[in-house]
Structure formats: C-alpha cells, structure tokens
C-alpha cells in the first residue's frame, strides 16, 4: 500500500521542482488555504463534540430526575417492570440486553470472521468479486426490513422446528441481529486480513507451515486489532439496534429464562413505550434512564474490548 503513494508524492515533488521556483504569491495562497482548512476541520470536530456532549447531558439530566422518585436500587436490581403500577425495575431489560448481545456475537463472529478469511485468503478472485459487493449491499438494507423478514419468515420456521406457540424471544432476535452485523464484521475483518503484509505469509511458508497454520498462527494474530475493531462495530450495532428486534422479541417485560421466552430489551422497551408516555412522569424519566444506560453499556463494552486489544498487542 505504502509504495505507490510514495511514488506519487515524489513524482509530484519532481514536477513542481521542474517548473522552477514557486512564486511567493502562490506559496502564500497555499499557506492560507491550508490554514483555513485546518480551522475548518477543527471547527467541525468541535461542533460535533458539542452536539454529542449536549445529547449526553440532556439524556443524563432527564434520566437523573428518575432518582427523585424511586431509588437506584429498585431501578437496577428489581425485575418488576409495571409502570402503570409505579414499579420501575429495569434489571430484566439490562440482563436481556447483555445476553442478546452475547448470543448475537456468539453466532455472528465465527461465521463472519470465517467468511473474511475465505474472502481474503482462500477464495478465487471471481468469488471475492461476488461476495464483497453482496456484503456491502446487505449493510444498506434498512433494519426494519430485516425485522419484517424475521417476523414473517424466521418466526414461522422457529415455531415449526421448536414446537413453540409463539417463537419470539432471544434466539429469534439474535439470529436477525447476527445477520445484520455479519456484513459489518466480515468486511472490516476482510480489510484487516488483506492489509497483513505479504512477507509474513511468505516467511511462514518458507519455514514449512501449512496453509491452515499460516492463517491461524500468522495472519489472524497479525490482523487481530482490525478484527477486534470490526467486532466492536458489530457489537455497538447489535446493542443499539431497535426496529428489527422489536418485531421478533415479543416485547414482554420479563427475564428471558429460555431462548423462546417472549421478552424485552432496553431498546425495544423504549421504542414501544416512549410515544405513549406523559412528558413529565416518572415513567418518562425511567425510559430516559434506560437510554442513558444503553449509552453507558456501549461505552463500557467498547472500553473493555479496547483494553483487551491493547493487552494482546503488547503480548504479541
């Protein structure tokens, strides 16, 4: 990757030198436009930070009003969510959200990383040129379409296979989510694997490694940081995804004890209830608190995986 860029740069230098001495006016103009661009980007970043900060502050402020009315202990550790009877226990949603994310990654990561390896290392060129655009296309499908397919195709199938009456629950949601995050994880891992320098592979083959050994011992570890950021991106999408989940999870505020218990996660509960809740009510504050919690959960998850990634790199 590096080499062509260098070539271009040196060629550009050569040509400008060939013109012989840049006029002072032109030089100043370039300086000026560079400065303006720097300010422009700085301003963009600051504006973005400001908006993000305001969002966090607003959600947090509304959310914290909740604790004027009920104790944090009740909110975080009670499994009883019946807002119409003033019981606001969100523990079931929190546990469900975490288990749904874990289950999704359990299904999606092996498949998508496997596909990435196939794409980058094994498949012949015509398969690569077919799979990659298809995956890019899948990212563009709106999530509600996935949800609708889950509702009309996946659920009847699960009902037939499992013999359940409803079929809604964690498994259905995880399968839909896995399909949704698969292209994201696969494509980014793919890029990470392709970016591993050729000389690593050549060296490993020269030492007598088999293809499997090269992939497992050399290529995947070398690409691990890229794969981890792919998993992070997939995971944040899974944690925050709403429309597809709402259609297949059943929306019953209870702990998902089995894979087929109709249940609810933070996102689906918020979207189901927020439009039917009075503005200045404990219920509304509780929903804002759940949104704030989602923010924290994704933040913590990202942090954990960043630290894991850093440790692994240090060890390598």
């Amino acid at each position, binding site marked *: 990757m590096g080499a062509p860029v260098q070539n271009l740069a040196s060629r550009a230098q050569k040509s400008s030198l060939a013109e012989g001495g840049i006029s002072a006016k032109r030089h100043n103009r370039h300086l000026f436009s560079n400065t303006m661009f720097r300010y422009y980007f700085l301003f963009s970043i600051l504006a973005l930070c400001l908006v993000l900060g305001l969002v966090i502050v607003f959600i947090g402020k509304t959310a914290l009003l909740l604790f004027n009315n009920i104790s944090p202990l009740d909110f975080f550790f009670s499994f009883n969510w019946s*807002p*119409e009877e003033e019981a606001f226990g969100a523990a079931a949603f929190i546990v469900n959200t975490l288990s749904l994310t874990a289950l999704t990654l359990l299904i999606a990561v092996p498949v998508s990383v496997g596909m990435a390896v196939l794409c980058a290392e094994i498949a012949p060129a015509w398969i690569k040129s077919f799979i990659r655009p298809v995956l890019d296309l899948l990212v563009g499908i709106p999530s509600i379409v996935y949800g*609708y397919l889950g*509702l*009309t195709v996946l*659920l*009847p199938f699960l*009902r037939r296979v499992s013999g*359940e*009456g*409803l*079929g*809604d629950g964690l498994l259905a949601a995880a399968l839909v989510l896995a399909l949704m995050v698969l292209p994201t994880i696969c494509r980014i891992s793919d890029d990470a694997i392709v970016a591993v320098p050729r000389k690593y592979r050549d060296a490993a083959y020269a030492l007598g490694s088999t293809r499997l050994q090269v992939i497992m011992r050399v290529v995947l570890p070398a690409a691990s940081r890229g794969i981890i950021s792919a998993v992070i991106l997939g995971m944040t999408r899974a944690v925050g995804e709403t429309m597809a989940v*709402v*259609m297949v999870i*059943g*929306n*019953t*505020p*209870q702990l998902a004890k089995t894979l087929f*218990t*109709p249940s609810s996660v933070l996102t689906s509960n918020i*979207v*189901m*209830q927020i*439009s*039917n*809740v*009075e*503005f200045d009510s404990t219920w509304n504050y509780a929903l804002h608190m759940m949104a704030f919690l989602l923010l924290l959960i994704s933040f913590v998850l990202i942090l954990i995986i960043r630290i894991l990634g850093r440790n692994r790199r240090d060890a390598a």
Partner: protein
Amino acid sequence: MKVFKKLTVSALTAVIAVTASFAGIAAAADSLKGKITVNGSTALLPLTLQAAKEFQKLHPKVKIAASGKGSVTGPQAVKKGIADIGACDWDASIDVPGFKAFDGQVANKVAVIPFATIVNKNVGVDNLTTEQLQGIYSGKITNWKEVGGSDANIVVVTRAFGSGTRVNYQAKALAGGDIVKKEKNYKETGSSGDMKTAVATTPNAIGYIDLVYVSGSDIKAVKFNGVAATTDNVINGSYKIWAYGYYMTKGQPTGATKEFIDYVQSKKFQNGSLKKLKFIPIAAMKG
C-alpha cells in the same frame, strides 16, 4: 466559474418568480390565515391529512402541519403548547384507565372508529363473548378448546400500554377487564400494522385492530357476542366495540383552528372523504 454563477442566478430568479406567482394566486383567494399544528393518534392521521389537503385548497393561506405518534401525545402536545390540535382515540378531558383527565381541554368529536377482534385464519372460532374475551386476555383461558375451538394454546397479541386502540378495546370489548402479562404465548406489538402481521403469521393467535385494517385472507374478524363487526352493525347500535375519535384543544377552538375543526365536522367532509377512508360519520351515531 462564470457559467456556474449564471446558472445560480437564473435558478434563483426562477424560484422567486414561481413563489411570487403562487403567492399571488393565494392572496386572491381569501383572508383566513394561520398555522395549525396537529399531533397525536396514528389512527386518525389519514383523516387529518386528507382534511388538511382539502382545507388548504379552500384556504391557501392556512398552513397545516400534521404528525402522528400515539394517542396520548395529542393532548400532551396541546398541554405543552406544541400543538393546536391533539388527535386522540379517547376523550382525554375525562379520566380513562391509566390516564388522568387533561384539565381545561375540550374534546371535539370528529369521527367514529370501529375496532374488531381478529384471529389467525387457522382458528375455528367464529364468535366470542365478553366473558370469553375477558378470560383470554386475563390469562384464565389458555386453550382454544375452552371456547369451542380445537385443542391448541391461545397466542395473545396485544398493543403496548397507552395505545388508543388498547384503551378503547379494554373499555368496550373487555368491559374494563385486565390485560395480564403471561409467561408464554403473550406478545406486545407497537402499531396496528405490526399487530396485523403478527396475527396473520402466528397460528392460534388472537388480537384486536381498527376495523379498517381488517382485510386479506390471513386474518378474520370474529363476532362479538354474536354480532358481526361491520360498519352497519356499529351504526344500528348492535356492535359495541367502537369509539369516537377526538380533536383535543386548549379551551374552545378559535380562528383557523375552529374553521378547520368545523370543516372536519361538516356534512360534506363526513359523508365524503371520511367515509371513503372507512371511518363512520359522527352524525350516524345516536349516542
């Protein structure tokens, strides 16, 4: 650069000219002007949009912005001063189960909305009584054979708490009975469309929906206490699951808002577009 500038200038001129000519036509029509914001029920939204289109043709200087979220957002938006009209599937000026009255708001009847109990096409039951529905929705009856059907578990589909359809169904079809959350075979949906899809694709499912949504061969509306769910039966008083749709306003409506509500309530609109949208004119009801 020059070509670009020229293009910009000519485009701007064109836009200004077009705007001016439209404004000119508008000014000629009439003097009623103002801005009306409508918020609230999604069930009433098609009606509001249609009425707004027709009303704006008559009074081009009136701007109407309509959006739908959920019934309770209507009176809430009116209370907060965000909207002039809050569309709501129940009379929000009095207490209903789960929601306190909104003080100082006036309920203007605009339409009659019939609701129907629907079941999946595989369910053999054609008629359900109030007691049977109460049993099913409170979780006491869990098998179709208890109400005359085949031996299969009942899958209950309901709307989220606070939905206007749910408020009305609970009040009229269940006679105020509870909708209980069960461990299994209980599911909540977020909108009328989701409700229809869920019941249509789930064998042994039961749900409830606006009558206008009942179509296709995957769901069927069951009789309520022996009476079929049809607009005729609503009008002659034998089918009881229906409700008025309301436009809530802060105090008595004035100005353009009053004119708009008057238009929606007018015979011309009630018997024309409103009927075409499969709502029932308020004049058709006797109580």
